[in-house]
């Protein structure tokens, strides 16, 4: 049963492909596989940490101030991630830009805190956060990989095609994000519900 808390986020309730949450980072920073993966992992960390803390404090925080407290907790972890990424790679931080700070307002994170972590134990909440975060990362990677392969002819910066490769410029633009997302949604819905 506990395992299900983890797996549901990856497949059955995937944040991007099923819940369609957190679209802003999903479309904005999925132009390369590396950016997408970094964004996904940053979100994963914030999600697990904030879920754990929210679950821990769920009896301590009165209902009336819970949202303010959740935001406080989430913002703290986002700031931690922000500094960590800057310390690891300035270049990556520049590529992700404001979207690291904007993890604060990713409705996926507040949504899990409110809908799950504030009502469940810490173990289940961590599993839930990890599953959702991994599902988010996986989806972002799916988008980023397609966009990088077609838009730049490479994956993780490694060129996949010959020198005469014609880049699909649209894939690097925001509109390419929409097209790629639409294609993945179509495939995912088909796989998930074969008789729908």
């Amino acid at each position, binding site marked *: 049963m506990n395992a299900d808390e983890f797996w549901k986020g990856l497949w059955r309730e995937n944040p991007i492909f099923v819940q369609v949450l957190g679209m802003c980072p999903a479309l904005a920073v999925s132009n390369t596989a590396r950016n997408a993966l970094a964004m996904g992992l940053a979100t994963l960390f914030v999600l697990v940490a904030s879920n754990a803390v929210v679950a821990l404090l769920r009896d301590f925080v009165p209902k009336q101030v819970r949202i303010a407290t959740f935001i406080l907790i989430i913002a703290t972890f986002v700031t931690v991630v922000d500094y960590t990424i800057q310390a690891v790679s300035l270049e990556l931080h520049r590529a992700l830009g404001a979207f690291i700070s904007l993890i604060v307002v990713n409705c996926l994170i507040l949504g899990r805190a409110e809908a799950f972590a504030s009502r469940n134990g810490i173990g289940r909440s961590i599993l839930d956060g990890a599953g959702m975060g991994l599902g988010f990362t996986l989806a972002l990677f799916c988008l980023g990989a397609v966009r990088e392969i077609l838009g730049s002819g490479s994956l993780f910066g490694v060129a996949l095609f*010959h020198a*005469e490769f*014609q880049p*699909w*410029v*649209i894939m690097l633009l925001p509109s390419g994000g929409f097209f790629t997302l639409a294609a993945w949604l179509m495939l995912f819905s088909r796989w998930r519900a074969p008789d729908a």
Partner: protein
Amino acid sequence: MVGPTRILEIRTSPHLLSGHRVETIMFNVVLALLPTTAWAIWCFGLKALLVLVTALASCLLTERAACAFSDRPSSLGDGSVAITGLLYGLTLPPGLPLWMVAVGGVIGVAMGKALFGGLGANPFNPALVARAFLQAAFPVAMTSWLPPFGPDRFGSLPASTLAPPFSRAVVDGWSGATPLAASKFGGELSALADLATGAVAGSLGETSGLLILLGGAWLVARHMMNWRIPVGIFTVVAGASALLHFVAPESHAPPGFMLFSGGLMLGAVFMATDMVGSPVTGAGCLLYGALIGALVVVIRAWGGMPEGVMYAILLANAVSPHIDRWIRPRVFGQVAAEGDG
């Protein structure tokens, strides 16, 4: 009590049927497109034929695959996707690499039509979705034009046509600017006669305005096309560009040039009139046409690109449901009762 059970059928509009079937209409549209297509092939030669065939084949195959993917019966038979393929092919520049043509066809039909639920459910014209995608994906290849009536056009192919998949198009030695680009960036106007007959550089189907008008007239005569849409477009484009030309003749082209250059004719007659993406009421169609015309003039006069018919129609497609919501025919009780029966 024995008798046929009457089941209330619930379906979306239109509830009044004209008697035309989808197949008949589509067959007639193909017929109306034939002169333009034949002229395009004559002008540009073998490469045009290959582009058109590839466009058609990619659209047809995608439609077939999409039907299989979503477990729907094949909708190839209604002919709508053939029109999409043909129109899409006519909007492309003649030397476009065939692999790009195929990519656009797949995107247009899969993302622009099948994704929304197939014929009738697509908010945008699939042929234009395909072209818009290509324009954003391969801006250089989509704006490399070859002149018509090239020597040996039936015996040889430009190197770009057969560029292997995912490869850059090799730009041939001579690529001519379209009349619109020459006017916008160079301040030169082409002769109206050349524009009307199609002896200019441009996309396959945007060359001969007269043949397109001929096809349109055929469809209007058979009541298979709403004449209000092109009339709305032409009126606004002619009026607005006459005004601009009067105010600032050095920076704005005269109305005749605006009407016959670029994709305006093809767009107004065959793209904007797509029944799926246009409003249903007469007044709505006039408004929709006027909106397209205004957008075309605005994009051409002040936009960053020389041509704007494609974006104008796509934007108007998006507005069309709102036009329908805004302009509703008055409902008479009598008609409603009959229509129900």
